[in-house]
């Protein structure tokens, strides 16, 4: 494909024809703020925070949608650009709750990032603010439409990735709002609680219920892993605070991208459930009683050994697990064949 040459902030760059100014800037590691833009979704270019100055053009142009042209000269941080961005932020903050104090997205919020970056302390336009009720009636997602900046990413994520069309823009003007059909709650809609809309929301309007009430964004360590449920093998980040898994967030998964299903995203609670087994148990007089590891392991070895001795190796059998790791299944096969001396090993994959 043909290359197009342009100049951004006095630096030269060549990108394939059809690229946007934003993509060209990213190639130069020049930062341009975005709110409604997402590389995986369609581009409405509606938030205007990504505007840049193009020499010779009367108006500022949205860099996420404007395509590069040969010889273009672009400024991403000129005074008019900064002025425009500040105005947009001021407008957004004028109808935004001052709630970072306890907001679950504090520390990982684009509105906050840009307000800090451009030094916009608060909205100055005054006027009416929304006072929508918090939607908190399901165990997965909390929706606070007062914090919504109407970027529409959730709408596009639900439609274009999740293929559900659960949420959409409703009403008009000041009353414009993101809502399921008939403005019901998610739990009364077709929502499958994949939480993929939450994963793309740039602010605290959509939050993971469990995660955001148990940890602040800067307190968690993220550990990338693979989902323990179905065979798709989605990747995600376990969010860990004080040695406990407090939630799951999307990462750039190889199989799944940022998309997860309700089990992968919200099904982590079993890890620290009080029902977890914490000590070996040995049955005495028909009742399982706590025992030490040494006692338990020695008993297993002695009894399995005795059965092998008395009836031969094929009196032993082993069920491996479709839930355990490869390494563990391998070792169990090794134990069965090399130590027990039988091929009686299978697992429940047939189910």
């Amino acid at each position: 494909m043909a290359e197009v040459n342009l100049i951004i902030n006095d630096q030269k760059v060549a990108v394939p024809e059809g690229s946007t100014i934003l993509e060209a800037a990213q190639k130069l590691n020049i930062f341009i703020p975005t709110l409604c833009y997402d590389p995986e979704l369609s581009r409405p270019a509606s938030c205007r925070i990504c505007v840049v100055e193009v020499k010779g053009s009367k108006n500022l142009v949205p860099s996420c949608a404007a395509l590069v042209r040969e010889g273009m000269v672009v400024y991403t941080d000129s005074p008019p650009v900064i002025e425009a961005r500040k105005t947009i932020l001021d407008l957004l903050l004028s109808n935004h709750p001052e709630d970072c104090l306890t907001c679950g997205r504090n520390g990982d919020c684009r509105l906050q990032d840009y307000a800090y970056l451009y030094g916009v302390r608060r909205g100055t336009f005054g006027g009416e603010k929304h006072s929508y009720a918090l939607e908190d009636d399901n165990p997965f997602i909390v929706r606070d439409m007062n914090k919504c900046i109407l970027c529409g990413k959730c709408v596009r994520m639900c439609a274009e990735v999740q293929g559900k069309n659960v949420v959409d823009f409703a009403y008009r003007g000041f009353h414009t709002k993101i809502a399921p059909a008939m403005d019901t709650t998610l739990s009364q809609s077709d929502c499958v609680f994949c939480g993929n809309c939450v994963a793309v929301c740039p602010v605290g309007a959509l939050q993971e219920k469990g995660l955001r009430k148990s940890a602040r964004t800067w307190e968690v360590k993220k550990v990338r892993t693979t989902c323990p449920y179905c065979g798709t093998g989605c990747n995600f980040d376990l969010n860990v605070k004080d040695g406990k898994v407090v939630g799951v967030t999307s990462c750039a998964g190889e199989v799944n991208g940022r998309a997860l299903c309700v089990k992968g995203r919200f099904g982590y609670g079993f890890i620290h459930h009080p029902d977890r087994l914490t000590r070996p148990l040995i049955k005495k007089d028909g009742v399982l009683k706590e025992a030490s590891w040494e006692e338990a392991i020695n008993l297993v070895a002695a009894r399995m050994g005795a059965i092998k001795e008395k009836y031969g190796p094929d009196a032993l059998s082993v069920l491996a697990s479709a839930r355990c790791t490869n390494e563990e299944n391998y070792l169990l096969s090794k134990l069965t064949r090399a130590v027990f001396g039988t091929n009686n090993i299978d697992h429940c994959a047939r189910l």
Partner: protein
Amino acid sequence: MTNPISDIAGADFILAIGTNTTESHPIISLQVKKAVRNGATLVVVDPRKTEIAGLAHYHLPIKSGSDIALLNSLAHVIIAEELWNKEFVASRTEDFDAFKETVARYTPEYAEKITSVAAQTIREVARGYAGAKNATILYTMGVTQHICGTHNVFAIANLAMLCGQVGKPHSGVNPLRGQNNVQGACDMGALPNVLTGYQSVAADEVRAKFAAAWGVKELPARPGLTVGEMMEAAEHGKVKGMYIMGENPVLSDPDAGHVVRALEKLEFLVVQDIFLTETARLADVVLPAASFAEKDGTFTNTERRVQRVRKAVEPVGEARADWEIICAVARAMGYPMNYSTPAEIMAEIARLTPSYGGISYERLEKGGLVWPCPVLDHPGTPVLHVGKFARGLGKFHPVEYVPPAEQPDEQFPLVLSTGRRHFHYHTGTMTLRTGALEVYYPEEYLEVNPADACVLNLENWEKVRVVSRRGEVEVRVCITDRVPAGLVFTSFHFPEVAINKLTNPVRDAIAKIPELKVCAVRIEKIA
């Protein structure tokens, strides 16, 4: 799967057989939906009106257990109308003539009688599949959990070969695995007849290689017992000791009553798990294992991608990783089994397993690897059978339709089918303890068609007794046309509705998969 998940979105034609993809494999279903948005034709073969069936251009509400009749009939049309890929069949397959002869009898009109799918629909679907540039077939337990499960899979493979829809992108024969590491457990030789990478225990050189690596004189040559056979052997006193790691057969296996009887007859049962499952309660020793978040390791997904599992937190209480427990047991039995990390175990696996030969933790840090990956600089093999089948020529296996083992009759007039729900997983040990999923979806129900409900005089959400020849459970009724008349459906996620007390343990003769998708039941009102 012969092809990667990401391939699905690029297919022109998708034949989804017996897969409730949106609920059981939600993320894979996103690829299907994407393909449909891009203009692909979607055909869903499922007795139930699932969400994915709602998106389909053709929904074939086939009679449970009649898949072979349908698949053979599709092949019949394709051959009769000369739509098959002659070049592919000639150069890459064998035994075509036998196959052609078998399917000759399966005219769409004949198949209509067995499957209750209209002959005209069969014709249209056949033409669509054969005419597509890239057509993919997806299937799951809806195909395999039948007495003829293996034959069903043969019938699918026959169709794909007939049209040359394998060995190239966006096509293939793609079983979607239900559990996170079914693929890996099989790859690792957790099967009675093979060692890692499907190396046969019957082959002398294979056994010699493993015996040398494992430091033992010899390894057993005779293939062992499958799960079902183990349970039978236990009941008959032939198997005396059993070691179960991370499985809950009491709830997941058919005819649960029989499983409990078998396990109770054992002289010694060890269960290693993260919860005190229904199976663990029967054990003599229960060993507390670490969960996936508490250990390092790898899972292999349904597209054969080996991916890292990483330790995020310490195990609860005194729980230990399964691999550590196994090592301790081996040592206590006088066998030196010592590894300091799972990475070391993977290195050993790679040395002994050609298809995993190039896999190492160091490489996995950079991302997953799709086997076959024989050597360290091999990029992995997302698409199988390109240019050549693993065995050389693709073999047509002619198969005939056989009806399900248990047919509805006067005493048990309804067919019960089981499956999964979107909000839950397997026997519910994990998903019923999340503080979220079970809150939203707290109780299981039985789907019953309005016509049947009317005959039986059932009310929505009424609690009923479901009875089969093997057992009974109580469950609430949900009256819905998601199921056709004559069929009822529920899941096996909830211990309170231990539906496998009812199911039929009769197994497919080859793969030994039980017929969980069809058993005859009746519904009784609870006075």
